[in-house]
Protein backbone atom coordinates (compact mmCIF):
# COMPACT_ATOMS: atom_id res chain seq x y z
CA UNK A 1 0.00 0.00 0.00
CA UNK A 2 1.43 3.39 -1.02
CA UNK A 3 -0.22 5.64 1.54
CA UNK A 4 -0.81 9.37 1.19
CA UNK A 5 1.49 11.28 -1.13
CA UNK A 6 4.15 13.46 0.46
CA UNK A 7 3.67 16.29 -2.02
CA UNK A 8 3.79 19.06 0.59
CA UNK A 9 7.13 17.90 1.96
CA UNK A 10 8.88 17.22 -1.32
CA UNK A 11 10.02 20.83 -1.98
CA UNK A 12 11.72 20.98 1.42
CA UNK A 13 13.11 17.47 0.97
CA UNK A 14 14.64 18.56 -2.33
CA UNK A 15 16.38 21.34 -0.39
CA UNK A 16 17.47 18.81 2.22
CA UNK A 17 15.95 20.90 5.00
CA UNK A 18 13.51 18.45 6.57
CA UNK A 19 14.31 17.16 10.02
CA UNK A 20 15.47 13.56 10.30
CA UNK A 21 12.11 12.06 11.17
CA UNK A 22 10.24 13.84 8.37
CA UNK A 23 12.99 12.98 5.90
CA UNK A 24 12.77 9.31 6.79
CA UNK A 25 8.99 9.34 6.31
CA UNK A 26 9.43 10.89 2.87
CA UNK A 27 12.17 8.43 1.95
CA UNK A 28 10.07 5.47 2.99
CA UNK A 29 7.16 6.71 0.87
CA UNK A 30 9.43 7.37 -2.12
CA UNK A 31 10.45 3.73 -2.24
CA UNK A 32 6.91 2.80 -3.30
CA UNK A 33 5.60 5.90 -5.08
CA UNK A 34 6.71 6.71 -8.60
CA UNK A 35 4.53 9.84 -8.65
CA UNK A 36 6.34 11.41 -5.73
CA UNK A 37 9.71 10.32 -7.08
CA UNK A 38 9.00 12.17 -10.31
CA UNK A 39 7.90 15.20 -8.31
CA UNK A 40 11.13 15.05 -6.31
CA UNK A 41 13.23 14.89 -9.46
CA UNK A 42 11.59 18.09 -10.72
CA UNK A 43 12.10 19.96 -7.44
CA UNK A 44 15.63 18.67 -7.14
CA UNK A 45 16.41 20.07 -10.59
CA UNK A 46 15.02 23.42 -9.39
CA UNK A 47 16.99 23.41 -6.15
CA UNK A 48 20.25 22.52 -7.90
CA UNK A 49 19.99 25.64 -10.07
CA UNK A 50 20.31 27.89 -7.02
CA UNK A 51 24.00 27.13 -6.80
CA UNK A 52 24.82 29.16 -9.90
CA UNK A 53 23.74 32.44 -8.28
CA UNK A 54 25.89 32.27 -5.16
CA UNK A 55 27.76 35.57 -4.84
CA UNK A 56 30.75 35.20 -7.13
CA UNK A 57 34.23 34.95 -5.63
CA UNK A 58 37.39 34.60 -7.69
CA UNK A 59 39.27 31.41 -6.77
CA UNK A 60 43.01 31.60 -6.08
CA UNK A 61 45.11 31.33 -9.21
CA UNK A 62 46.98 28.28 -7.88
CA UNK A 63 43.79 26.20 -7.58
CA UNK A 64 43.57 25.08 -11.19
CA UNK A 65 47.16 23.87 -11.25
CA UNK A 66 46.71 21.96 -8.01
CA UNK A 67 43.65 20.19 -9.42
CA UNK A 68 45.44 19.21 -12.61
CA UNK A 69 48.42 18.02 -10.59
CA UNK A 70 46.20 15.91 -8.40
CA UNK A 71 44.41 14.17 -11.29
CA UNK A 72 47.78 13.50 -12.91
CA UNK A 73 48.85 11.44 -9.91
CA UNK A 74 48.57 7.69 -10.57
CA UNK A 75 46.28 7.16 -7.59
CA UNK A 76 43.84 9.82 -8.85
CA UNK A 77 43.09 7.74 -11.89
CA UNK A 78 39.98 5.67 -12.34
CA UNK A 79 41.71 2.44 -11.35
CA UNK A 80 42.67 2.79 -7.72
CA UNK A 81 42.29 6.28 -6.26
CA UNK A 82 42.29 6.47 -2.46
CA UNK A 83 38.72 5.56 -1.60
CA UNK A 84 38.85 7.71 1.50
CA UNK A 85 39.22 10.85 -0.66
CA UNK A 86 36.61 10.69 -3.33
CA UNK A 87 33.50 8.64 -3.91
CA UNK A 88 33.90 6.39 -0.88
CA UNK A 89 30.82 5.47 1.13
CA UNK A 90 30.23 8.23 3.64
CA UNK A 91 30.62 5.88 6.61
CA UNK A 92 34.05 4.71 5.45
CA UNK A 93 35.25 8.33 4.99
CA UNK A 94 34.06 9.33 8.45
CA UNK A 95 35.67 6.30 10.09
CA UNK A 96 38.98 7.00 8.38
CA UNK A 97 39.05 10.68 9.44
CA UNK A 98 37.90 9.84 12.98
CA UNK A 99 40.65 7.30 13.54
CA UNK A 100 43.30 9.56 12.09
CA UNK A 101 42.19 12.47 14.27
CA UNK A 102 41.82 10.68 17.57
CA UNK A 103 45.11 8.91 17.79
CA UNK A 104 46.54 5.42 17.46
CA UNK A 105 44.84 4.11 20.59
CA UNK A 106 41.49 4.36 18.85
CA UNK A 107 42.72 2.49 15.80
CA UNK A 108 42.91 -0.65 17.89
CA UNK A 109 39.43 0.00 19.30
CA UNK A 110 38.08 0.51 15.78
CA UNK A 111 39.63 -2.72 14.57
CA UNK A 112 38.13 -4.65 17.48
CA UNK A 113 34.71 -3.15 16.76
CA UNK A 114 34.93 -4.09 13.10
CA UNK A 115 35.92 -7.64 13.98
CA UNK A 116 32.97 -7.88 16.37
CA UNK A 117 30.55 -6.54 13.76
CA UNK A 118 31.84 -8.93 11.13
CA UNK A 119 31.54 -11.85 13.53
CA UNK A 120 27.96 -10.90 14.39
CA UNK A 121 27.10 -10.74 10.69
CA UNK A 122 28.49 -14.22 10.21
CA UNK A 123 26.40 -15.51 13.13
CA UNK A 124 23.30 -13.83 11.74
CA UNK A 125 23.95 -15.35 8.33
CA UNK A 126 24.28 -18.82 9.85
CA UNK A 127 21.06 -18.36 11.81
CA UNK A 128 19.25 -17.32 8.66
CA UNK A 129 20.54 -20.33 6.79
CA UNK A 130 19.15 -22.65 9.48
CA UNK A 131 15.83 -20.78 9.47
CA UNK A 132 15.50 -21.24 5.73
CA UNK A 133 15.01 -24.96 6.14
CA UNK A 134 12.08 -24.77 8.54
CA UNK A 135 10.19 -21.56 7.62
CA UNK A 136 7.17 -21.24 5.35
CA UNK A 137 8.92 -18.22 3.94
CA UNK A 138 12.03 -18.26 1.85
CA UNK A 139 14.79 -16.26 3.41
CA UNK A 140 17.77 -14.84 1.55
CA UNK A 141 20.60 -13.39 3.56
CA UNK A 142 22.19 -10.33 1.96
CA UNK A 143 25.84 -9.82 2.78
CA UNK A 144 27.74 -6.57 2.57
CA UNK A 145 30.39 -6.26 -0.11
CA UNK A 146 33.73 -4.51 0.23
CA UNK A 147 31.88 -1.30 -0.72
CA UNK A 148 29.67 -1.63 2.38
CA UNK A 149 31.33 -4.14 4.70
CA UNK A 150 29.14 -3.29 7.68
CA UNK A 151 25.86 -3.57 5.80
CA UNK A 152 23.56 -6.53 6.09
CA UNK A 153 20.11 -7.44 4.94
CA UNK A 154 17.49 -10.06 4.46
CA UNK A 155 14.94 -10.76 1.77
CA UNK A 156 11.77 -12.45 2.92
CA UNK A 157 9.92 -14.20 0.08
CA UNK A 158 6.44 -15.66 0.39
CA UNK A 159 6.01 -19.41 -0.03
CA UNK A 160 4.90 -19.17 -3.68
CA UNK A 161 7.39 -16.41 -4.40
CA UNK A 162 4.77 -13.89 -5.41
CA UNK A 163 5.72 -11.31 -2.81
CA UNK A 164 8.91 -10.27 -1.12
CA UNK A 165 10.30 -7.71 1.26
CA UNK A 166 13.87 -6.53 1.66
CA UNK A 167 15.12 -5.20 4.97
CA UNK A 168 18.58 -3.66 5.12
CA UNK A 169 20.70 -2.21 7.84
CA UNK A 170 24.03 -0.44 7.99
CA UNK A 171 23.93 1.05 4.50
CA UNK A 172 25.28 4.59 4.28
CA UNK A 173 22.75 7.33 3.46
CA UNK A 174 23.26 8.43 -0.08
CA UNK A 175 23.66 11.77 -1.75
CA UNK A 176 20.55 13.43 -3.13
CA UNK A 177 21.21 12.26 -6.67
CA UNK A 178 21.41 8.59 -5.73
CA UNK A 179 19.21 5.71 -4.70
CA UNK A 180 19.67 2.08 -3.84
CA UNK A 181 18.33 -0.34 -6.46
CA UNK A 182 17.52 -4.03 -6.01
CA UNK A 183 18.36 -6.46 -8.81
CA UNK A 184 16.80 -9.86 -9.44
CA UNK A 185 19.22 -12.05 -11.32
CA UNK A 186 19.19 -15.32 -13.25
CA UNK A 187 21.48 -16.68 -15.93
CA UNK A 188 23.34 -13.40 -16.24
CA UNK A 189 20.18 -11.36 -16.75
CA UNK A 190 19.20 -8.64 -14.31
CA UNK A 191 15.76 -7.18 -13.65
CA UNK A 192 15.07 -4.27 -11.34
CA UNK A 193 13.29 -5.22 -8.14
CA UNK A 194 12.69 -1.68 -6.96
CA UNK A 195 14.31 1.44 -5.55
CA UNK A 196 14.70 2.64 -2.00
CA UNK A 197 16.47 4.96 0.38
CA UNK A 198 17.74 4.35 3.87
CA UNK A 199 17.42 6.56 6.89
CA UNK A 200 20.29 8.28 8.64
CA UNK A 201 20.78 5.11 10.66
CA UNK A 202 21.24 3.05 7.51
CA UNK A 203 18.00 1.12 7.90
CA UNK A 204 15.60 0.67 5.00
CA UNK A 205 12.73 -1.45 3.73
CA UNK A 206 11.61 -2.30 0.20
CA UNK A 207 8.50 -4.06 -1.06
CA UNK A 208 9.99 -5.99 -3.97
CA UNK A 209 8.56 -5.48 -7.44
CA UNK A 210 8.92 -8.55 -9.61
CA UNK A 211 7.66 -9.53 -13.08
CA UNK A 212 6.89 -12.99 -11.77
CA UNK A 213 7.67 -15.36 -8.98
CA UNK A 214 10.80 -14.39 -7.07
CA UNK A 215 11.60 -18.10 -6.92
CA UNK A 216 12.47 -17.90 -10.63
CA UNK A 217 15.59 -15.90 -9.79
CA UNK A 218 18.78 -17.35 -8.44
CA UNK A 219 20.43 -14.36 -6.80
CA UNK A 220 19.82 -10.80 -5.67
CA UNK A 221 21.96 -7.71 -5.39
CA UNK A 222 21.70 -4.06 -4.40
CA UNK A 223 23.67 -1.29 -6.10
CA UNK A 224 23.93 2.48 -5.88
CA UNK A 225 22.23 4.15 -8.84
CA UNK A 226 21.09 7.63 -9.89
CA UNK A 227 17.73 8.78 -8.56
CA UNK A 228 15.04 7.08 -10.58
CA UNK A 229 17.12 3.98 -11.15
CA UNK A 230 18.97 2.52 -14.11
CA UNK A 231 18.03 -0.05 -16.75
CA UNK A 232 20.94 -2.14 -15.52
CA UNK A 233 23.42 -1.99 -12.65
CA UNK A 234 25.87 0.88 -13.12
CA UNK A 235 27.04 1.67 -9.62
CA UNK A 236 28.81 -0.01 -6.75
CA UNK A 237 27.32 -3.21 -5.41
CA UNK A 238 26.72 -3.03 -1.68
CA UNK A 239 24.73 -6.17 -0.81
CA UNK A 240 24.25 -9.56 -2.42
CA UNK A 241 22.80 -12.97 -1.74
CA UNK A 242 21.76 -16.23 -3.35
CA UNK A 243 18.43 -17.98 -3.18
Amino acid at each position, binding site marked *: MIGPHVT*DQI*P*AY*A*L*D*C*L*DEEEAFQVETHLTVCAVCRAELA*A*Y*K*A*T*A*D*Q*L*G*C*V*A*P*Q*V*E*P*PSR*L*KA*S*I*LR*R*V*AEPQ*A*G*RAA*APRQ*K*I*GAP*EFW*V*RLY*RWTMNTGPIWVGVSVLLLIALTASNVVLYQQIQSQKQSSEFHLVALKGTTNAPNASGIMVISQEGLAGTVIVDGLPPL*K*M*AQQYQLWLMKDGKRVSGGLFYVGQNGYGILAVQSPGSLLNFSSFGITIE*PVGGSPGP*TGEKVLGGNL
Partner: protein
Amino acid sequence: MNIVSDDAALMSQVAQAHSAALSELYDRYGRMVFSLAFRITGSNETAEEVTQDVFVQVWRFAERYDPQQGKLTTWLSSVTRNRAIDILRQQNVRPEGHADSMDDDLFSLKDPASDVAVEPSVELRLQQQQVRRALEQLPEEQRQALALAYFMGMTQQEIAEKLNMPLGTVKTRIRLGMIKLKDLLG
Protein backbone atom coordinates in the same frame (compact mmCIF):
# COMPACT_ATOMS: atom_id res chain seq x y z
CA MET B 1 43.35 18.65 -29.38
CA ASN B 2 40.26 20.66 -30.40
CA ILE B 3 38.22 21.55 -27.34
CA VAL B 4 34.51 21.56 -28.23
CA SER B 5 32.02 24.04 -26.72
CA ASP B 6 29.22 21.60 -25.91
CA ASP B 7 29.23 20.49 -22.26
CA ALA B 8 28.22 16.91 -23.00
CA ALA B 9 30.99 16.50 -25.55
CA LEU B 10 33.45 18.09 -23.12
CA MET B 11 32.46 15.66 -20.38
CA SER B 12 32.84 12.82 -22.84
CA GLN B 13 36.44 13.89 -23.37
CA VAL B 14 37.00 14.15 -19.63
CA ALA B 15 35.67 10.60 -19.33
CA GLN B 16 38.39 9.59 -21.79
CA ALA B 17 40.97 11.05 -19.44
CA HIS B 18 41.85 14.12 -21.52
CA SER B 19 43.30 16.52 -18.96
CA ALA B 20 42.99 19.44 -21.37
CA ALA B 21 39.24 18.85 -21.33
CA LEU B 22 39.25 19.01 -17.52
CA SER B 23 41.24 22.23 -17.76
CA GLU B 24 38.60 23.69 -20.06
CA LEU B 25 35.89 22.48 -17.71
CA TYR B 26 37.58 24.29 -14.83
CA ASP B 27 37.87 27.46 -16.89
CA ARG B 28 34.15 27.36 -17.51
CA TYR B 29 32.86 26.39 -14.10
CA GLY B 30 35.68 26.65 -11.58
CA ARG B 31 34.58 30.02 -10.29
CA MET B 32 30.96 28.90 -9.99
CA VAL B 33 32.01 25.84 -7.97
CA PHE B 34 34.42 27.82 -5.78
CA SER B 35 31.88 30.59 -5.18
CA LEU B 36 29.23 28.12 -4.08
CA ALA B 37 31.70 26.29 -1.86
CA PHE B 38 32.80 29.57 -0.30
CA ARG B 39 29.21 30.72 0.25
CA ILE B 40 28.46 27.52 2.15
CA THR B 41 31.70 27.11 4.10
CA GLY B 42 32.76 30.72 4.60
CA SER B 43 36.39 29.66 4.34
CA ASN B 44 38.81 30.14 1.44
CA GLU B 45 40.80 27.12 2.51
CA THR B 46 37.79 24.85 2.80
CA ALA B 47 36.34 26.18 -0.44
CA GLU B 48 39.61 25.26 -2.16
CA GLU B 49 39.43 21.78 -0.71
CA VAL B 50 35.81 21.38 -1.85
CA THR B 51 36.60 22.65 -5.34
CA GLN B 52 39.51 20.25 -5.65
CA ASP B 53 37.40 17.35 -4.47
CA VAL B 54 34.59 18.23 -6.89
CA PHE B 55 36.82 18.39 -9.95
CA VAL B 56 38.69 15.23 -8.96
CA GLN B 57 35.31 13.53 -8.57
CA VAL B 58 34.31 14.82 -12.00
CA TRP B 59 37.57 13.39 -13.36
CA ARG B 60 36.93 9.99 -11.79
CA PHE B 61 33.22 9.67 -12.56
CA ALA B 62 32.74 11.71 -15.76
CA GLU B 63 31.29 8.68 -17.50
CA ARG B 64 28.37 8.73 -15.06
CA TYR B 65 27.24 12.18 -16.20
CA ASP B 66 24.11 11.82 -18.28
CA PRO B 67 23.06 14.99 -20.13
CA GLN B 68 19.52 13.59 -20.30
CA GLN B 69 19.30 13.89 -16.50
CA GLY B 70 20.01 17.64 -16.48
CA LYS B 71 22.49 20.40 -17.14
CA LEU B 72 26.13 20.05 -16.21
CA THR B 73 25.91 23.21 -14.09
CA THR B 74 23.13 21.77 -11.94
CA TRP B 75 25.07 18.51 -11.56
CA LEU B 76 28.17 20.43 -10.49
CA SER B 77 26.12 22.55 -8.07
CA SER B 78 24.63 19.44 -6.49
CA VAL B 79 28.01 17.73 -6.07
CA THR B 80 29.58 20.94 -4.70
CA ARG B 81 26.84 21.60 -2.18
CA ASN B 82 26.84 18.01 -0.95
CA ARG B 83 30.61 17.99 -0.59
CA ALA B 84 30.74 21.36 1.16
CA ILE B 85 28.10 20.40 3.71
CA ASP B 86 29.76 17.00 4.22
CA ILE B 87 33.09 18.62 5.01
CA LEU B 88 31.49 21.06 7.43
CA ARG B 89 29.79 18.18 9.24
CA GLN B 90 33.07 16.29 9.41
CA GLN B 91 34.65 19.39 10.91
CA ASN B 92 31.69 19.70 13.30
CA VAL B 93 31.01 23.17 11.96
CA ARG B 94 27.48 24.37 11.44
CA PRO B 95 27.21 26.43 8.25
CA GLU B 96 25.34 29.21 10.00
CA GLY B 97 28.28 29.59 12.37
CA HIS B 98 30.03 31.67 9.77
CA ALA B 99 26.98 33.45 8.44
CA ASP B 100 27.40 37.17 8.15
CA SER B 101 24.66 39.69 8.63
CA MET B 102 21.24 38.75 7.36
CA ASP B 103 21.51 41.78 5.12
CA ASP B 104 24.06 39.94 3.00
CA ASP B 105 23.32 39.43 -0.63
CA LEU B 106 22.18 35.87 0.02
CA PHE B 107 21.61 35.21 -3.63
CA SER B 108 23.58 37.26 -6.08
CA LEU B 109 20.68 39.05 -7.70
CA LYS B 110 22.71 41.93 -9.06
CA ASP B 111 24.60 41.60 -12.34
CA PRO B 112 28.29 40.92 -11.71
CA ALA B 113 30.38 43.95 -10.87
CA SER B 114 32.52 45.27 -13.65
CA ASP B 115 35.68 44.13 -11.88
CA VAL B 116 34.53 40.51 -11.85
CA ALA B 117 35.47 38.63 -14.97
CA VAL B 118 32.56 37.66 -17.17
CA GLU B 119 31.71 33.98 -17.02
CA PRO B 120 33.37 32.20 -19.95
CA SER B 121 30.38 29.92 -20.48
CA VAL B 122 27.49 31.49 -22.36
CA GLU B 123 25.21 28.76 -21.08
CA LEU B 124 26.13 29.55 -17.47
CA ARG B 125 25.58 33.30 -17.98
CA LEU B 126 22.14 32.64 -19.43
CA GLN B 127 21.27 30.27 -16.61
CA GLN B 128 22.37 32.80 -14.00
CA GLN B 129 20.21 35.47 -15.60
CA GLN B 130 17.23 33.15 -15.69
CA VAL B 131 17.60 32.09 -12.05
CA ARG B 132 18.14 35.70 -10.89
CA ARG B 133 14.97 36.83 -12.68
CA ALA B 134 13.02 33.99 -11.10
CA LEU B 135 14.32 34.78 -7.60
CA GLU B 136 13.46 38.45 -8.05
CA GLN B 137 9.84 37.44 -8.42
CA LEU B 138 9.78 35.86 -4.97
CA PRO B 139 8.95 37.86 -1.86
CA GLU B 140 12.06 38.72 0.16
CA GLU B 141 11.02 36.46 3.04
CA GLN B 142 10.76 33.43 0.75
CA ARG B 143 14.21 34.15 -0.75
CA GLN B 144 15.63 34.43 2.74
CA ALA B 145 14.21 31.07 3.83
CA LEU B 146 15.43 29.35 0.67
CA ALA B 147 18.91 30.85 1.05
CA LEU B 148 19.20 29.69 4.66
CA ALA B 149 18.17 26.19 3.64
CA TYR B 150 20.31 25.98 0.51
CA PHE B 151 23.49 27.81 1.50
CA MET B 152 23.46 27.30 5.25
CA GLY B 153 22.17 23.71 5.19
CA MET B 154 19.66 24.57 7.90
CA THR B 155 16.55 22.54 8.59
CA GLN B 156 13.17 24.24 8.66
CA GLN B 157 13.20 24.00 12.46
CA GLU B 158 16.60 25.70 12.63
CA ILE B 159 15.47 28.44 10.28
CA ALA B 160 12.40 29.06 12.43
CA GLU B 161 14.59 29.36 15.52
CA LYS B 162 17.08 31.66 13.83
CA LEU B 163 14.40 33.96 12.47
CA ASN B 164 12.32 33.65 15.64
CA MET B 165 9.16 32.75 13.80
CA PRO B 166 6.70 29.82 13.82
CA LEU B 167 7.82 26.61 12.14
CA GLY B 168 4.63 26.58 10.09
CA THR B 169 5.49 29.97 8.62
CA VAL B 170 8.91 28.77 7.54
CA LYS B 171 7.47 25.63 6.02
CA THR B 172 4.96 27.67 4.04
CA ARG B 173 7.61 30.10 2.80
CA ILE B 174 9.89 27.32 1.61
CA ARG B 175 7.09 25.36 -0.01
CA LEU B 176 5.60 28.36 -1.81
CA GLY B 177 9.01 29.66 -2.82
CA MET B 178 10.04 26.34 -4.33
CA ILE B 179 6.69 25.92 -6.09
CA LYS B 180 7.07 29.35 -7.67
CA LEU B 181 10.67 28.71 -8.68
CA LYS B 182 9.80 25.37 -10.22
CA ASP B 183 7.09 26.99 -12.28
CA LEU B 184 9.39 29.80 -13.43
CA LEU B 185 12.43 27.66 -14.16
CA GLY B 186 10.54 24.79 -15.72
